[in-house]
């Protein structure tokens, strides 16, 4: 693999061909915010919070740094008026769903995003898909998935698999940027009593963390 030379925020950066802008930036300590990215998972490009300006062959495009493969002479700007404006609004859109989520609040402060800009619609989930993809790609269990599409899209545990696999795994819980996942799982257990009883022998009790989000309905 050959080395590629590019420029990020005015700095010359060398990185291996096939790397993304995000990886190249991280390699020299330039921070680009992410919410749906995880190094163990395939690039996904859903939260768009890593949007940056990428200039190539005289044209500037707004691209997702987590997915865009680097190329020779690429000029990247990780902060600009445009980029900040996009990030601010994306955060406000997500805050309508998870107003108290720590990961969002930290970024909201940085970009001046208000959680009151849009009417609250607390689903507590920003659909980053970290849980779904971790379960599919790393654990290969498919115990959690997306249902429906568009504005009705949501994440659900598939009870038949989840109640068998999740009690002994729970590796996705800490990945959740809004800490809603554990609650969802408890709810799944509660809503499927017959399955829960069947698996009770193996299941450890799961307690809800006290971050205030105890319901997903």
């Amino acid at each position, binding site marked *: 693999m050959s080395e590629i030379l590019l420029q990020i925020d005015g700095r010359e950066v060398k990185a291996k061909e096939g790397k993304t802008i995000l990886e190249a930036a991280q390699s020299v300590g330039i921070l680009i915010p992410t919410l749906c990215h995880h190094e163990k998972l395939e690039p996904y490009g859903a939260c768009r919070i890593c949007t940056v300006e990428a200039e190539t062959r005289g044209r500037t495009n707004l691209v997702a740094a987590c997915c865009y493969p680097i190329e020779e002479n690429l000029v990247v700007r990780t902060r600009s008026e445009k980029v900040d404006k996009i990030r601010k609004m994306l955060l406000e859109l997500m805050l309508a769903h998870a107003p108290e989520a720590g990961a969002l609040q930290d970024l909201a402060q940085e970009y001046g995003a208000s959680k009151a800009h849009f009417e609250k619609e607390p689903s507590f989930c920003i659909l980053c898909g970290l849980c779904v993809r971790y379960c599919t790609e790393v654990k290969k269990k498919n115990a959690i998935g997306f249902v*429906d599409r568009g504005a009705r*899209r949501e994440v659900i545990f598939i009870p038949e698999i989840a109640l068998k696999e999740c009690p002994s795994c729970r590796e996705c819980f800490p990945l959740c940027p809004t800490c809603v996942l554990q609650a969802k799982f408890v709810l799944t257990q509660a809503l499927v009593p017959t399955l829960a009883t069947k698996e009770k022998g193996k299941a450890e009790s799961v307690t809800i963390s006290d971050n205030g989000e105890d319901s997903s309905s």
Partner: protein
Amino acid sequence: MPRINSPAELEELRKGILSKRDQNKPCITLCSGTACNASGSGEIAASIQEEIKKQGLSAEVDFRRTGCHGFCERGPIIVIHPEEICYLQIQPKDVPEIISLTMKEKKVIERLLYTDPNTNAKIIHESEIPFYKNQERLVLGSNGRIDPKSIDDYLALGGYSALAKVLSQMTSEQVLEEVKKSNLRGRGGGGFPAGRKWEECRNAPGEIKYVVVNADEGDPGAYMNRAELEGNPHMVLEGLTIGAYAIGSHEGYIYVRQEYPLAVENVGIAIKQAEEYGFLGENILGSGFDFTIKVHQGAGAFVSGESSALMTAIEGRVGEPRPKYIHTAIKGIWDRPTNLNNVETWAFVPQIINKGVDWFTSIGTAGSKGTKVFSLVGKVNNTGLVEVPMGTTLRKIIFDIGGGIPAGKKFKAVQTGGPSGGCIPEAHLDMKVDFDELTKAGSMMGSGGMIVMDEDTCMVDVARYFLDFLSDESCGKCVPCREGIRQMLKILSNISKGKGRDGDIELLEGLSEVTRDASLCALGKSAPNPVLSTIRYFRPEYEAHIREKRCPAYFCKELISYYIDPKKCQACMICLRQCPGGVIAGGKNQIHVIDQEKCTKCGTCFEVCPPRFGAVKKISGEPVPSPVPEEARIIVRESKEK
């Protein structure tokens, strides 16, 4: 069916088919596209067959069920050849007369002919009807002449000769050059030059490459791809096979939505027939070139028409778009080079090969060559499929071909390009329609939907309708599209309910900008178009909704009231009796009054009030006058002598 092993054998086969056909033998063709089928084409076909037999004409008259003729407003359509007599809105009861009078006695039945609304003249021939006269039908032209289930019909018109020419006389590079020189641009939406896409796919590394037909048409009101695929499937197959040869692909897919059962059926039959003749499969026409086509049925998701989502769906997963920073021409289905084009793009290829680049580039505008099929629907007299050269004005399409707006109403706007397109106002009616002009006007070509709107259409509601569609049809993967559309839809719904606030327009513009700039795929990137184009051209209408709580088109229910003018009410009891809610008070000789509290604003009273009274009014943005006191409601009629 014999297997055809060379271009010479194909020519023999064609001559054989033609020698069995007498061009002068009377032939009844009946439109059997989906629209005409829905209005009874099946029954008519049965009765034509029965009558031909009953009246002893089996030997003298041919009968053929064809694809969509395009004039769907007036279907089912019959065209009788060789005279080309065109009968419209046929019913089964008309059939015996058609057989006995027109077929036996060669007499034209006046009442089934097209009547020119301006001159009241009857028009006998299909090609002289204004709807057809002003069109140039390169893609749709054969639809009315062939039975899509018969490959022999296609062969009789010279079908597969372009494929034979390509395989026997041209190298794959030459084919690619022809298509590049023709400047054929993709008919599915973006208008990307097909030749350049082919070239990128051809040059991409990898042994296995795919070519795909995008027939996942999903825009509300658009159905040209359906008519093309179900009406002339072999033309698409031939184009795809030529493309595969140029690109170096041996496997093709047709991605067609399962809601198009007739298209699925006809293309399935066509593939089988082409395989039997050897136009598909191994060693096509003895050239050594192998190519197979599979049909993949889509499950009805609008977003699956997006190239990367479509390819993900073909792989057997949920049709969600993925980043395309590496083009699908390089990494498509299963990460292999894949060339996707719309049905109509592929359909042009055989004609470009047969008639040449000069012919093709002589049609259209500088940047957009050839013709384009539009699905002309909405508030227009002649709804149907219209094919015109690029550069034809909107006015010609809507007024000359479409026959203008029904019921004497005024034209307000035309929405082009489906949910991702925009609304174009009257001031732009003389715009020459092509890819670039539409984009300049804030809309897009899309796949060619054209929804005409009259003065009764509320533009805020139009934007709300399309955003509602998109919020359902977005895959929901990325935040700007899913959440941006959700919030825009909320704001638009509020505005149309009279709950709009100052700053809403600016917020819509801000959301539009982020949704356009940050979304993952073209669905999100173009989703703000209906909002932005209506704000651009109809801003005062938004402001009236927000500031005055007034709907200038008198459409938004929450902002209008129905009111009976006491000075005009003749107490005729018509509205009172017809009101479904029973909320109109009054009686004989008693002025009628609507109970505003209980009125559901269905508009029945407004529609039934006799025009000579015109007592029921729609009001918006002003308070409803208080009702006349009960004691003053008696009408004292003046003597009749006066």
